[in-house]
């Protein structure tokens, strides 16, 4: 791997950039691998990278039906934070956040992780109580979290309307200053490049169409490019977890819902932090390119169409216009949807499946971008050792049988 640096950039400039090598190869699949990761989103690629890097398992293929990063990794609102309520979630997401903090250097690919702070607004007494509880839990879990008075909010977000039309006044907020945003595509590409450099084969345009399972153990993966033998299969197919599980013969507690996002036309900097409001369903930040990036709600019904319905856009932009009345004159440039796999307790499943040698990473719902490094790290451990790491042990499928649900609905109402 040629290292990216200012120097390499200058040198290549002299040569009209004609000598840049490929960021990752485009190999034909080998007949067999030690491990196959299904899904070339951030999670799948990160898993492959950490399998190679942390566990020395380099004979790995990532099989992607389309193009890497084309799933939710490429269509999310990029909010990264770790201020989750429950201990289990806080530990996993905080581990992830720590990895984010060195990710560009680790991958030698600038993922533009911008720690500009994530603000959660409170609009009523109940919100305030929830925020207080969360801040307290976060701090004792070693997650930075502070309360902001309305005045402090105004200092950080001068354009906010604290009265918000009178219907939803802003009474306070929590902030995680280490939270922020990142360049979503770069996360996929950066992990792909780094994994490729360690020997991982990234195989695109190759849908997984079935599994060979003998005596309850997986032995091969059927793909659009033929059968691939392997004893370990890691599913990381956000949006298609149930479809894959169906091919392998088990069911998941997951519903796949269309979640929308939209961007405005690009403008000069006007919003320097991420602002989220669970009560009125609005999440907004400004990308480095200048667009306002706005997360909308999900449709309530199952949909694999990667599009969302108009009422959700109306509701979201209604909320944005309320918090930021000057934005009524901004314009929507593009609106799209992704398919998010949601679990009944708004927490993911990350661990073993009823099929031996097969593992599942899914159900991140509206908020799994932020967990990409941490989940990949823990998932690689799980696959390598056939046993979950303590960071993901609680996120087992078995919790639905035992009742150990990790109900993050409170946090997931503001889940991006």
């Amino acid at each position, binding site marked *: 791997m040629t290292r990216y640096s200012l120097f*390499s*950039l200058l040198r290549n400039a002299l040569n009209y950039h004609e000598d840049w090598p490929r960021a990752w190869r485009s190999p034909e699949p080998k007949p067999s691998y030690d491990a196959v990761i299904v899904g070339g989103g951030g999670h799948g690629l990160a898993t492959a990278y950490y399998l190679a890097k942390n566990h020395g398992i380099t004979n790995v293929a990532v099989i992607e039906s389309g193009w890497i990063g084309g799933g939710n990794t490429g269509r999310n609102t990029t909010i990264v934070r770790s201020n989750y309520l429950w*201990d289990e979630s806080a530990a996993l997401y905080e581990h992830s956040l720590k990895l984010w903090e060195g990710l560009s250097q680790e991958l030698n690919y600038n993922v*533009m992780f911008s720690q500009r702070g994530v603000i959660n607004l409170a609009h009523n007494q109940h919100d305030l*109580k929830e925020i207080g509880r969360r801040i*307290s839990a976060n701090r004792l879990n070693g997650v930075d979290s502070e309360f902001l008075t309305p005045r402090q909010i105004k200092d950080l977000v001068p354009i906010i309307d604290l009265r918000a039309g009178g219907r939803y006044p802003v009474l306070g907020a929590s902030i995680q200053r280490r939270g922020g945003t990142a360049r979503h595509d770069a996360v996929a590409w950066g992990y792909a490049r780094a994994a490729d450099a360690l020997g991982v084969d990234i195989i695109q345009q190759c849908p997984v169409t079935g599994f060979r399972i003998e005596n309850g153990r997986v032995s091969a993966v059927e793909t659009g490019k033929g059968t691939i033998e392997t004893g370990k299969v890691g599913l990381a197919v956000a949006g298609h977890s149930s479809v894959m599980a169906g091919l392998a013969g088990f069911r998941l507690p997951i519903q796949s819902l269309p979640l929308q996002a939209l961007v405005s036309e690009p403008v*000069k*900097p006007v919003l320097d932090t991420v602002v989220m409001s669970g009560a009125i369903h609005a999440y907004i930040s400004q990308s480095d390119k200048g667009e306002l990036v706005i997360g909308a709600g999900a449709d309530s019904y199952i949909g694999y169409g990667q599009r969302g319905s108009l009422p959700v856009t109306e509701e979201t932009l209604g909320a944005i216009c309320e918090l930021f009345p000057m934005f009524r*004159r901004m314009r929507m440039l593009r609106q799209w949807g992704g398919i998010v796999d949601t679990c009944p307790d708004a927490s993911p499943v990350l661990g073993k499946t009823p099929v031996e040698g097969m593992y599942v990473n899914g159900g991140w719902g509206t908020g799994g971008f932020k967990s990409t490094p941490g989940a990949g790290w823990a998932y690689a451990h799980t696959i390598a050792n056939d046993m979950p790491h303590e960071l993901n042990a609680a996120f087992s499928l078995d919790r639905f049988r035992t009742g150990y649900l990790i109900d993050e609905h409170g946090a997931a109402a503001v889940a991006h």
Partner: protein
Amino acid sequence: MTQSFRLPEGGLIDRGRRLGFRFDGRDYMGCAGDTLASALLANGVHLVGRSYKYHRPRGILSAGAEEPNALIQLGEGARVEPNQRATQIELFDGLRASSQNRWPSLNFDIGAVNNRLSRFLPAGFYYKTFMWPASFWMKYEYIVRHAAGLGEAPRERDPDHYDKTFAYCDVLVVGAGATGLAAALAAGRSGARVILAEQDSVLGGSLWSGSGETIDGEPASDWIAAARTELEAMEEVTILTRTLAYGYFDHNFMALVERVTDHLGGEAGALPRQRLWKLRAKQVVLATGAIERPLVFADNDRPGIMLADACRTYVNRYAVRPGKRAVVFTNNESGHLAALDMAAAGIEVAAIVDLREDPMGPASERAEAAGLRVVPGSAVIGTRGDRRVRQVQIARLNAEGTQALAAGETLDCDLLAMSGGWNPSLHLFSQSRGKVRFDAGLGCFVPGASAQAERSAGACNGTFGLNDCLAQGFAAGQQAAKDSGVKSGRKSAAAPRAQNHDFLPARWCWEVPSDKPAGRAGKAFVDFQNDVTVNDLKLALREGYESIEHVKRYTATGMGTDQGKTGNVNAIGIVAQIQGREIPDVGVTTFRPPYTPVTFGVFAGRDVDGLLDPARKTPIHPWHEQAGAVFEDVGQWKRPWYFPKAGETMHQAVNREVKAARDSLGIMDATTLGKIDIQGKDAAEFLNRVYTNAWAKLAVGRCRYGLMLNEAGMVMDDGVTSRLGDAHYLMTTTTGNAAPVLAHLEEYLQTEWPDLDVHMTSVTDQFATVTIAGPNARALLAELAGDMDLSSESLPHMSIRDGRVAGIEARIARISFTGEMSYEINVPASCGLALWQALMTAGAKYGITPYGTEAMHVLRAEKGFIIVGQETDGSVTPIDLGMDWIVSKKKKDFIGKRSLTRPDMIKTDRKQLVGLLTDDPKEVLPEGAHLVEGAVSQTPVPMLGHVTSSYESPNLGRSIALAMIKGGRARMGQSLQAPLANGKTVACTVTGPVFLDPEGTRLND
């Protein structure tokens, strides 16, 4: 300024209505009917902006929605708007606009240094750098952010208002060019309900760009006028001009945005500024036309380089000469049409450079006949000119058209008109899930099979001859009306007829060959707005970003405000060429709404400010307001939180209210509690299944508290249910849960137990409910309740009775959430205020004191009563709450029962409800504070649970708290610590959750 480039006659402008406007601080004149772009061109202004990345001078490229360059900041102050396309802004008197992305001025822009550094800033350069030192990204980012972005966001509250409406029609026609008009006429004549939507201010579409077309033997303009008159006379036809169909959704649902008053440029009065139409059409005819393609050659982006058809449009529609001396560069017939019209308008046409070896076709023949100079088999390979093109360089091509032979002559000019062919506007078709298909002959993507009740016609369908467009539009309109189910009344006349003019034959050439090695000539722009060049595409492919979607994201091609309307197909063609693949194999990127950007405000519509969300108010609300209550939002309800007297703090007010209720008499508006009327002979059985406790034996006239679980065994709601008759119950729910609980019950009733004879009706709003609580409650009620026997024998705790209070028919329940003797008086809602006033008057002698939700919370916490949503959070079982007593062991089943025996539900270290007393009785624990054992030396630290409720209790003279603590019931007397965010640690002791009157003597006396 004079409009020195205005033609003396012709065009769709009103020379008599001269409009003054200002651009970048200079004053100009234009005419009614102008766009800002045409008015600027009439004044000879081409340079209108700087490009996004390299800050290159940019001019007006097009005359429509596809404009990538002429993006300007419109308006001033609160009405300012960034990134508006000058080509679509209708001119009004007093318009103010300025250029964007330049500093200090458009002519002299510091950012233009980027153009010099451009070699170091190829696509994706930022992924490769700015990584050291690691902590510096936030500083680099600051610079990156400030360099990026185009216009400035508005900074003041938007003074305008917006509207939205639903709409229905049989046939929606999008686009009112020749095709759309023909379709609307055909559909309208059948009697169908038709909506014709056109983004432009006029009907006619590209008919206005041409010259000399006739339809049914009349000049096109007359035909348009006649069509309009006919359509306007049809009762069921609605013409919406200035209305953009921006998105095509499922089930033939279309979203349109109408610009109602934007073109008036001022206060809109009672009219909204814009309106969102949420339209369901039985059938849709798309007649959205086509967009001309630029040619990709070195330095193809200078001001003065325009699309050929746009030049025609400026000449014919706006009566403007876009230059004095033009060169035309084309690969098809359109360039020749433009040359002819420009020549006729007195523009000197220096040459028509045609990529085709042997230009032929009706237009090129006419050009030749008109004596225009045609340079065949040649290409423009470069341009010069600083802030406006002034010279072009020409070269002959080899026979295959793949290479430029040595550079040939240079031509002086101030205008370069280019045409690279046409792209049908299939955005809406594609949004409707229709798959597009590449037509190699037409050199463009065209609609494939329809996925919805839709048909494309005319130029957007790859049909370019006018006669064919009319015929196709007419047939589409007729068929759409028929398919919508309209029984045709009047026999429709035949389709309008005209002459065909096509742009074919053409020679496709995605990247115009150059005389220099690839990548060494000037920048050949593919995407003007995002400054993406052919070299950027090549770099992306070289680095392995091979999918067209990767190319898009790595280079940002097609991601600007124009969404690649002019650039995308060229980019696809070039990628195919480099990869040696066929264009259909490369494919298109996804078309997404909106077609052109739409204002946020229109989605909010009038649901802003007070109308954002309904605020529900009780019949007694006006009294509370007058009494100076402070309200809190509970769900959608406004509830009095506390009633401060002059000079009182919240704390003082709440303490006073709490004391009053315990010592004498308090009064509270409890109207918001959910109330569900349940009737039917199986009602008791139904309650048995939905509550944890047993209901069969509840006597008529008695009340019982119930807990409701979800199927996972978690507490969902609680409340008191009363038996009013043999088969008649009244259930109460928490305020916020009223609707979800009714929905939950209905779901089980209808889908699981349809055999039960049970009917439920929400009666929350039927009654106003007033609670009086305190030692004097009974005395007060006795005074107003006539001869009703209120003794505990006759009306014991947890019983209910009909009667009259203050002359008002009332249902009186003796139940208590405060631990005091307490009555809930339910009266018809319209009598609520009267009841309240009567109670206040009669209660004066007891110092009757209105109390709000905060005092209620303190009162119930003193008694250890839970609040669902405060003590519980969706993860709490009744056992966790210590409420085993209410969970029937005998009932075989109820919702959630089975879940309670799962392994994790029976663990002893689950969080359990306890009381907490701080060691310092003055200290009030913050709600949400977490508890730990011992001191915190490092994080993460194991937490035992958290404080769910915490108050100063004026009755106990100390603070009290409820908490959910791991294994809490086994920890009685243990000392725990609450480390707070401010660094302080509060010590406290675990106790039972009931702090006051555990025997309940106050209630039962």
